């Protein structure tokens, strides 16, 4: 059963402040060397999908720079490969919307020109490692045109997005934006028959300003949607606290093995070819993730350090994320801080984020 993929990267979030000033959520650096879209792209590539469209936002510079021709995900191909497609400009309506119908209509040729049976539609801001092959297999056996992927989450937790009410036959009975005690959290990922997708765009074309899930939600009586449960780790990032937490999840043995160290399904990213990390005699690094090219002379605890960061003598970094090319001066102390690329912290500067939201230091700032 031929399946193609479509990844939506045309959405942001208003709660990240400086971190998303010049980039989309999809290209937010994550986990020491990744960008969030790496997970969607790798999941597609690892599931044998060789034609992938990416709907890019208007501020797509960092995304295009990162994805390139898609060759890191084996998508630099003659037959199929990567299709980078323009989305519509951000509007108030679309902020946070994953599958804005206007974006899909604008790129309807992507769906028309291929002869695939199915399309897997995915957001680009979750940290997860999923094998789509069982999803495709299950979907090919149902007569339903759509299968939504969900994850059971603890009840009462503050999740942002859609919850599914699933009936005894496994069919979606209702979709809501609040949990209502349901624990079936929609993962921003579904598979759809390509023919049905074209019909859907045709039927609901007048509602192009709406999100596809929103259209489904408000037209439930005409929808026939199957479900597929994802049982692995799902790192959802909706604000800087989540961002820090989902970064720190990389230190969890089980999550690290499941998401990052699965030899069958590696997470690919753009390679930079940095040198190994040099831990000098004074370095003291614990429970942390450090990326290549760093030189460490200070202390690092429960933190994520991206590539080519320098941590000076006597500096202390705790519960923080330091993105690439950061320079942390001698004796500086950072606690609960997220520092964007090329941030410079002068000698002796002390920043404590306290117990609340982390302090965010914008790109290229010096403090």
């Amino acid at each position: 059963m031929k399946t193609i993929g479509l990844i939506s990267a045309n959405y942001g979030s208003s709660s990240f402040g400086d971190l998303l000033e010049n980039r989309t959520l999809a290209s937010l650096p994550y986990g020491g060397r990744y960008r969030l879209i790496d997970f969607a792209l790798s999941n597609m590539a690892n599931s044998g999908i060789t034609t992938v469209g990416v709907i890019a936002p208007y501020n797509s510079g960092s995304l295009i720079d990162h994805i390139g021709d898609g060759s890191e995900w084996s998508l630099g191909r003659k037959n199929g490969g990567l299709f980078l497609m323009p989305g519509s400009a951000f509007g108030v309506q679309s902020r946070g919307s994953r599958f804005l119908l206007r974006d899909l209509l604008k790129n309807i040729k992507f769906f028309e020109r291929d002869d695939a049976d199915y399309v897997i539609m995915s957001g680009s801001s979750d940290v997860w490692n999923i094998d789509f092959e069982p999803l495709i297999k299950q979907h090919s056996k149902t007569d339903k045109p759509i299968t939504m992927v969900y994850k059971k989450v603890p009840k009462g937790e503050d999740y942002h997005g859609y919850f599914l009410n699933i009936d005894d036959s496994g069919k979606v009975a209702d979709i809501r934006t609040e949990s209502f005690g349901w624990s079936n959290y929609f993962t921003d990922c579904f598979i759809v028959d390509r023919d049905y997708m074209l019909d859907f765009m045709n039927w609901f074309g007048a509602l192009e300003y709406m999100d596809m899930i929103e259209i489904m939600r408000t037209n439930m009586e005409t929808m026939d949607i199957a479900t597929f449960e994802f049982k692995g780790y799902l790192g959802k990032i909706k604000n800087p606290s989540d961002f820090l937490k989902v970064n720190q999840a990389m230190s969890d043995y089980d999550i690290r093995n499941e998401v990052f160290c699965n030899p069958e399904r590696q997470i690919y990213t753009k390679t930079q070819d940095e040198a190994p990390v040099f831990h000098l005699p004074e370095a003291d690094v614990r429970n942390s993730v450090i990326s290549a090219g760093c030189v460490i002379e200070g202390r690092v605890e429960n933190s994520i350090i991206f590539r080519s960061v320098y941590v000076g003598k006597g500096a202390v970094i705790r519960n923080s994320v330091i993105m690439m090319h950061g320079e942390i001066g001698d004796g500086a102390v950072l606690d609960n801080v997220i520092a964007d690329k090329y941030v410079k912290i002068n000698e002796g500067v002390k920043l404590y984020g306290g117990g609340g939201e982390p302090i965010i230091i914008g790109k290229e700032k010096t403090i």
Partner: protein
Amino acid sequence: MKKKKCIAMLLAGGQGSRLGRLTSSIAKPAVSFGGKYRIIDFGLSNCVNSGIDTVGILVQYKPLILNRYVGTGESWDLAVADGGVHILPPYARETGGEWYEGTADAIYHNIDFIDIYDPENVLILSGDHIYKMDYNLMLQEHLDKESDLTVSVIEVPWEEASRFGIMSTDDQDRITKFSEKPAEPDSNLASMGIYIFSWKALRKALLEDHEDKASSHDFGKDIIPKMLAEGKKLSVYRFKGYWRDVGTVQSYYDSQMDLMDDVENINVFTKDMKVFSNSNMYPPQFLGPDANISNSLICNGCTVYGTVKHSILGSGAVVGAGTVVEDSIVLPNAIVGRNCRITKAIINEGVVVEDNEVVGSEDGEVIVYGQAKLSI
């Protein structure tokens, strides 16, 4: 096709038997170095950083991992339309097949390959040296002096000169004498095994050498003495900087320890003339709650729960809790269990060291532990 000013031929076929277990299943240029590199990265990166975009890699001994590693050359920006990397194994002809019998013989067998590119000059490289070098500077000198052959040399301490192939020169840096490991050297300019020949002169020398039944078909032993005797114009190019031949276990170990001990001199990690590699995709390293790492180089994909002192951990290596790794090199994807003691040892690629093992000792020689288990 555009005529090439200079193409490189990289000799990567030797067994490297002095590296013992390190090369029991892999060609020497493909042996891991500095945690994430393979030895051939230095030669290939030098080529691309010197503007040489066409490289023939002569393989013969266990080339599978090397072939796979080099791939299209893309990792070194050498996947170019009008050149690129070419893996050149021995191949059969109408008269049958022959192995490469020596360094010069290997090039002789690929005269047709070089003729395809019809370069003005050919750079001959070894696949087992650790150094950064701009070959373009050497080529410029070769062209300025209109030499038939330019040999790159490095000044070595006089007391060590008798271990090298020594070039004696006149005041114009023309080579007057070549002596292989002379007992009483009259120069301290050691050949680095890096040559630039004008293709015309080399082509002629190779054809004649092939007919010479007494020849061992080696550049150092046969081709250079022959050209010198014929009065060809041979010059030296004086290279200054870090350069090591890592042909023995000890030199292989020492050169890697230099990455931590001799940071001033060994410049392989600096941004100028960057050394590229074809590394597998690994997540960043994870250092556990009780990890204790000092004065060490740790690569992507490593997981460390124990203590690592003055050591190198290659990509994907694991060090268990309670283990102490000291003055050692753990090659990529090796797994050292819990409560082990690894001292002055090289743990081979992909090897598993069981819990509670003691490997190596402070006073002993550097040992290589285990047979490499290489995965693609």
